[in-house]
């Protein structure tokens, strides 16, 4: 069975700041890590491989440094890694990112199952998985919280819906996005680190794709434009009260009465 996991490198912290003058994100000096939600996707793939055999590959689109997250995936036990990197991919929104990934996927493999994380910690849209599935013309199921059965030509999963729990069987090829906690992700192992030290990361650029039209990628291929970035506003309409506990609880009581909550 061929399983492909999509992983993304994200800033190590979400405490980013906006430069008040330029309105640009201050990203320098922040280190990077693998999107934490993608660890669950990798773990899910490795568990399926343990049960059914086959290969697990990871794919990421990002700058050359993003190969670090592929190395990390190797340390968890992943077999292959693909990096899609080209200056012309820069500035991609969800549509351009999904398109680029789908072009990369078509180029390298024919996975039975693609697994994505639930969302990222930076862009945070949870949209990339479904859009990849659309570009590949395969079905997808989001919010998978359990894998119930892995059959020869389909997978049975449990999904967490707002008011129901749904069990569905999906034929391969298909894409799923998995919930956090579907499985506890294993830690990267030192032994695997040594074993995979020389394992290559396959790299592809726009030139390698079926669609080589620059307009489909990066900023050009992105219908959404970020006009402005700013810190969240704070509510200035507020009152602070200090005093002894008795006074304070009486004031809260009066307020609750005034607002008709009691």
């Amino acid at each position, binding site marked *: 069975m061929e399983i492909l996991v999509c992983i993304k490198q994200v800033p190590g912290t*979400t*405490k*980013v700041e906006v430069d008040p003058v330029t309105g640009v*994100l201050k990203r320098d000096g922040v280190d990077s890590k693998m999107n934490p939600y993608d660890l669950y996707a990798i773990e899910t793939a490795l568990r399926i491989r343990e049960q059914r055999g086959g290969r697990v590959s990871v794919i990421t689109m990002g700058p050359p440094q993003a190969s670090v997250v592929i190395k990390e995936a190797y340390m968890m036990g992943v077999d292959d890694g693909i990096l899609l990197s080209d200056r012309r991919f820069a500035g991609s929104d*969800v*549509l351009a990112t*999904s398109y680029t990934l789908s072009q990369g996927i078509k180029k390298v493999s024919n996975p039975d199952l693609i697994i994505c994380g639930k969302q990222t*910690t*930076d862009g*945070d*849209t949870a*949209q990339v998985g*479904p*859009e990849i*599935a*659309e*570009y590949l013309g395969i*079905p*997808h199921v*989001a*919010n998978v919280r359990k894998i119930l059965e892995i059959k020869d030509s389909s997978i049975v999963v449990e*999904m*967490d*819906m707002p*008011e*129901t*729990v*749904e*069990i*569905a*069987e*999906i034929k391969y090829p298909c894409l799923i996005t998995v919930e956090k906690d579907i499985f506890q992700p294993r830690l990267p192992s030192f032994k695997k680190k040594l074993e995979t030290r020389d394992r290559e990361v396959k790299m592809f650029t726009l030139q390698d794709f079926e669609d080589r039209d620059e*307009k489909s990628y990066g900023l*050009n291929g*992105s219908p*959404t*434009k*970020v006009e*402005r*970035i*700013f*810190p*969240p506003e*704070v*509510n200035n309409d*507020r*009152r*602070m*009260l*200090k005093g002894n*506990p008795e006074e*304070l*609880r009486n*004031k*809260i*009581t009066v307020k*609750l*009465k005034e607002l008709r*909550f*009691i």
Partner: protein
Amino acid sequence: EDEVVKVDKSKWKGIAVYVDHVEGDIHPVTFELIGKARELADKVNHPVYCLFMGHDIGHRAEELLHYGVDEVFVYDNEMLKDFRIEPYTAVFEDFVNRVKPSVILVGATTIGRSLAPRVAARFKTGLTADCTVLDIKENTDLVQIRPAFGGNIMAQIVTPNNRPQMATVRYKVMTAPERKAEASGRIIHCSIEENRLKSNINVLSVTKKQKEHGISEAEIIVAAGRGIKSEKDMAMIYELADVLGAEVACTRPLIEAGWLDSKRQIGLSGRTVRPKLIITCGISGAVQFTAGMNNSEYIIAINKDEKAPIFKVAHYGIVGDIYEIIPGLIENIKRVKEA
């Protein structure tokens, strides 16, 4: 870039809302979006549309006409009984091609978050996730503001050269309009060739979860944070909630400690709430927490540290020790209620 073909925006008219539902039970985010759609539509003189697909839903469509919709497009087909991505996307595609709406709003529910991106990719257009503010320019460009980086920054996003423009909005971010006694607008029944409704997904079972008293729907919430020293002290939180008829919620550390069910977590990785009143008890007010509650109508915060960031979002900030305030407060409330 010079050869970019400009989209003809005048060919795309109307603000459409996807009607989110499970077996015909319309999710309340739908009405909130209709309210927003009406407001946007009035600014540019566009109609408001609803797209309602499913099975055996015809009679439910009527309800939408009490909220200021011009036209409800109903696709009723047995193959649309369960939410499955391929047929739902096919119907959405049919609707968009037929109506050519300028803007499509989708609730950021489990279904909406799965369906909207699929449709956006099919039309190769932009989709802005989890918008908290929406406005529209004279040229019909939708101005979309959303949090990213875990709520630490806000981004204003536009889709200047593609139609339809798509956005998802979480439940309880917008305000639902009042239901009008009179119905207005009309229902249009649509059909689609069955061969477009095929799916490689087979829904084997749908089990209703136990109806629990959720925090998403609650009008009053008492929220506990790490100011609570031990699990047994939660008793005073439950009692305060009890006398107020409130639901109990909490911050993530209390979930991690296993003191409450994870469904009671407020925040970015928990639930968004928008009660009429929330009382936070010993909560510092990290942005990941406030992102899930700062739209509450009235916020009372109790914290002994006057520098705690929760006081930046609170309407009524009480600097004090919860252990000294809450037990007496419970007594006060009981007395008021008895009087």
